């Protein structure tokens, strides 16, 4: 039985590994700003995902909280954090903005890739995050 922490760890490490691998290729090819942007974006994407898990558990623990208002506050707080890599990339030359944006979606890409794989191979209940 996988705990929530394991789940987060799995997706985060996958996203980071892919990002670092792509970044290494980019560095070898000579596009250093692109690589730096990608890693920066992915880093904040992971931080956002971890924080999301924390706030979610906190909110679900007490059932009487107003869900939408609490969600709005958590979304706004996390987005303030997500804005940081974008601002860094826009202000400093060594980080490329486009790959920073791509990096922000790295965790989502990891999640969607796995479900797409499941859908295509029809390995219905044997896989997925239930394991």
């Amino acid at each position: 039985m996988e705990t929530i922490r394991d789940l987060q760890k799995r997706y985060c490490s996958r996203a980071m590994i892919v990002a670092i691998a792509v970044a290494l290729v980019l560095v070898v090819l000579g596009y250093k700003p692109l690589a730096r942007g990608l890693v920066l974006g992915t880093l904040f994407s992971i931080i956002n995902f971890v924080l999301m898990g924390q706030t979610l558990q906190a909110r679900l623990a007490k059932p009487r909280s107003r869900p939408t208002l609490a969600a709005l506050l958590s979304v706004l707080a996390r987005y303030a954090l997500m804005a940081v890599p974008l601002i860094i990339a826009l202000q400093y030359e060594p980080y490329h903005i486009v790959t920073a944006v791509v990096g922000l979606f790295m965790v989502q890409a990891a999640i969607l890739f796995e479900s797409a794989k499941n859908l295509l191979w029809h390995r219905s209940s044997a896989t997925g995050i239930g394991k």
Partner: protein
Amino acid sequence: MEIELQSMIKVAAYLGGGMSIGFGAIGAAIGEGHAAAQANRALSENPELSGDIVKTMLVGQAVAESAAIFALVVAILLLFLQVPAPTVLKAASLIGAGLCIGLGALGSGVGSGMPAAEACRGIARQPQLMGRMTTTMLVGSAVCQTPAILSMVIALMLMFINFGDAPVVKAVALFGAGLCMGLGAIGSGMGSGHPAGEACKGLARQPAAAGPLTANMLVGSAVSQTPAIFAMVVALMLMFLNFGESAFNPAWAAFLGAALSTGLSAIGSGYGCGLAAGASCEGIARHPRNVGPLTTIMLVGQAVAQTPCIFGLLVSFILMFKAFPETAALAPAMALLSAGLCMGFGGIGPGLGNGMTAEGAIRWVARQSESASLLMRIMLVGQAVSQSTAIYAMVISLVLIFVI
């Protein structure tokens, strides 16, 4: 003048950025709030599964949030954008871009909360289906993001394409392009959440029907997104058609009217189509043998529910292509703006109503497939009557354009 333009651009960019992140965050929050409320219910039904439910919700929310992250990216770009040659055109297109992605993310955010919510409840009922359920939920919410992606494409085009020194009236057209795409994406984004949510719910009820359910969900949400695509067509035309000779005074109203006509009427049609698709997914989960008649009646119902949006598109095209003589008076311009407003608002109700009728008919075709043709006939008659109000609105719009 140079400094004034510079500050105008800054104001426009801040306004656009604010609207973008504001609407986007609200959409994500509503979707997430809905999902959290349902997850709470699921937890109270089946507390020992709390780990699974929280995991599902976490993953669902991560994907559902991408629409709002698009809005965030655009907002930050707007705030820090350096504009080399400030023009009025650029200012208008920056506000338009912010509005476009903000409203688009609002719809998709609300819509993709639905599959997450239903998946949480479904897992509480059928924990062994977790893998399949998560996959359906993720595919569903990924499809829900399409209108937001279309909005982002239009927003980025508005921000980075240089429209040169076209006449000032083009500024209204650019703002209208953003408005049209943003409004048009709301209905489709919210609507395509319904089939995704119902598919997750249905999976818990009838796991064997997973294949037809997923297929029907994809078809249903793809058709629900047609109004958003209509809005994108109008937005692209407003951006790229050459309006060189049009005089400023009536033309600004015509462009704004064209944007409002398609954008507003797409809200009702998109949501209505989503209701029909949701009912069809629910029906397939109840009686998987009735896939054939259910898909047929869903497509027919959606096609009729899209008619108000097609009327809106027609009025938009007339407003864009008809050449209006220049005047100094306010009344002709107001008539054109009013034509767009009339058709736009007038399309919301009938689109929604047609979707509701289709929902009712589809729900009962699933239970009583032998009276499918009778129900389809009644549905078409009922929809036709409820559409007549959209037609009155179109008549008033055409009178405003051609007679006044």
